């Protein structure tokens, strides 16, 4: 089983929503579409489901061209950002609805709904209506509806975006387990890099209707093919600076920060990408370089501290563990973990990672 997009393109009027895309999703995989709003995640999913037709290109499923096939005739299910359930059905009826339409026998419906409900911790609320449930439970019901059907393709369009923090964490942990031993392809769209990392599987980074990179999630994270992919897969945003190399001396152009490294690349000009958690208020790793900064703003988020600072003409973002209290305008010393730098050439292609 596989889902393959061949040169799929989507235009609406004069605007191109999806630029020519080739993507092959394999059986039993979870695939994350990672990109900001309007990157084309939802459009891509709708094309995969058959809710929307591509302007050109083909969609192949299991070696069959399904480009024009109606959504009703495909075996897929979808979960949305909004909690979509039939408003006047009970939870049981809601979960059972896709089975009823396909004419499954009542006994089997009861058994299958019961099983899915248990999996999603809904067993106690089968007789309630959606608006009597909390947001998390409503979304669980929608997930149950998608799971009960044994679809070949399960599409999850930012399913956690409308949930509050706690519920999101909880459901995010459960999600990969739900799909573990299912014979299907799962596609999960999200704007948050952290979601992709926690879900694992494969990730496709998207920007403005282009699939930038597709591969194993950790691979995409550790070795982004180019600067765009690295930027999409970094939250808080990645720090980027132009550097020059001669011998084993690396030097940031806009300030005087320099370090030694035995990274084997030719002398010349490069760009480095530094993820915020590799700039910290304490030394980390064996190989670190000092950078002085003037604090612009310092935010605490949970047990982490986000410090924005300037150095030379550049603005930097750093993320340190623990609570690091800094005053605005304060001069401070931070450390960059040289081993974690990503080096890009002047055409923004990755040269080496540390």
């Amino acid at each position: 089983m596989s889902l393959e997009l061949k040169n799929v393109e989507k235009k609406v009027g004069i605007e191109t929503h999806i630029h020519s895309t080739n993507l092959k999703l394999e059986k039993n995989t979870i695939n994350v579409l990672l990109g900001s709003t309007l990157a084309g995640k939802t459009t891509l999913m709708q094309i995969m489901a058959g809710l929307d037709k591509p302007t050109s290109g083909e969609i192949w499923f299991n070696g069959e061209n399904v480009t024009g096939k109606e959504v009703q005739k495909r075996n897929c299910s979808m979960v949305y950002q909004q909690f979509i359930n039939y408003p006047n059905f009970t939870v049981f009826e809601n979960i059972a609805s896709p089975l009823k339409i396909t004419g499954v026998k009542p006994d089997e419906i009861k058994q299958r709904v019961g099983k899915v409900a248990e999996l999603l911790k809904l067993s106690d609320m089968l007789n309630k209506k959606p608006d009597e449930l909390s947001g998390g439970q409503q979304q669980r019901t929608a997930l149950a509806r998608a799971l009960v059907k044994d679809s070949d393709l399960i599409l999850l369009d930012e399913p956690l975006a409308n949930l509050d923090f706690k519920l999101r964490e909880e459901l995010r942990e459960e999600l990969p387990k739900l799909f573990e031993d299912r014979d299907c392809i799962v596609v999960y769209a999200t704007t948050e890099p952290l979601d992709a990392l926690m879900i694992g599987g494969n990730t496709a980074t998207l920007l403005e209707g282009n699939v930038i990179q597709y591969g194993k999630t950790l691979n995409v994270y550790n070795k982004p093919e180019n600067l765009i992919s690295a930027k999409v897969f970094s939250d808080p945003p990645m720090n980027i600076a132009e550097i020059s190399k001669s011998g084993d001396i690396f030097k940031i152009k806009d300030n005087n920060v320099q370090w030694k490294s035995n990274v084997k690349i030719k002398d010349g000009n490069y760009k480095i990408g530094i993820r915020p958690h590799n700039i910290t208020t304490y030394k980390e790793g064996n190989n670190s370089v000092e950078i002085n900064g003037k604090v612009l703003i310092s935010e605490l988020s949970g047990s982490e501290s986000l410090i924005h600072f300037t150095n030379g003409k550049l603005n930097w973002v750093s993320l340190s563990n623990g609570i690091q209290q800094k005053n605005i305008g304060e001069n401070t010393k931070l450390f960059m973990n040289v081993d974690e730098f990503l080096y890009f050439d002047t055409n923004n292609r990755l040269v080496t990672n540390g």
Partner: protein
Amino acid sequence: MNKTLNQKAWYFVIPVFALVAFNAVVPLMTVVNYSFQETFGSNVFQWEGTRWFKEILHSERFHASLGRQFIFTFIILLIQLPLGIAIALTMPKKGWGVPICLILMSMPLLIPWNVVGAMWNIFALPDIGFLGNSLNSLGFDYNFTQQSGDAWFTTILMDVWHWTSLVVLLSYAGLNSIQPAYYQAAEIDGASRWDIFRYIELPKMKKVLTLAILLRFMDSFMIYTEPFVLTGGGPGNATNFLSLDLVKMALGQFDLGPAAAMSLIYFLIVLLMCWVFYSLMMKDEGRT
């Protein structure tokens, strides 16, 4: 901490209180006053107790007009609700068609009621009216001033023309508030068009439809101007609805006492129906 006593806020209530007193309480109490008395003019009144109420409640004339009123309202709701929903479903959801449809739909609602009556009166005249003339030349024996069936037909058609738009606009608003994801989810489930209507659109429109029923019920139950101009309650008493009958009794025959008693009964019926609707609406609201 001690609160300082300051009752000046009450002054702000006085204007509203005075206004309501003059336009609601005083007239209503005058009617209540009339309903217990008999008058022969020249401002001489005589106490009659509950006589008028008993008479009205037992009068065949009242039963007849109340019956007509219920039948009329029932037919109106039966036609306008499904028709309004059907039109709303076929209206475009985006593009240049939207403003055109909305303007076309609002137009009948903007026409003054007596103008609607006059328009339809001329429109339906059997000899020169477009509708009347056309029907007659098609071979129908149509004359709304002489045949009660035709009078009913014309009155109902007029009301449908005038008020269906209200149901359309309310339903349209209800339909537009449904997120597109609902339709997509149903499509993925393999639901048919009817399933989508029955299990998504109708439940989602429930609130606006309750409102539409309430509004259409009250308005059609109190209908006066349009049939007054169109048929004047005729032929005979065929379209003599409750409020037409009331005005005939009060002004035509100057039976102030019975007319006052009748208006109070009328008022209580409307109030009762509204309360029933309201509690039905609130019952559902409380469950959610």
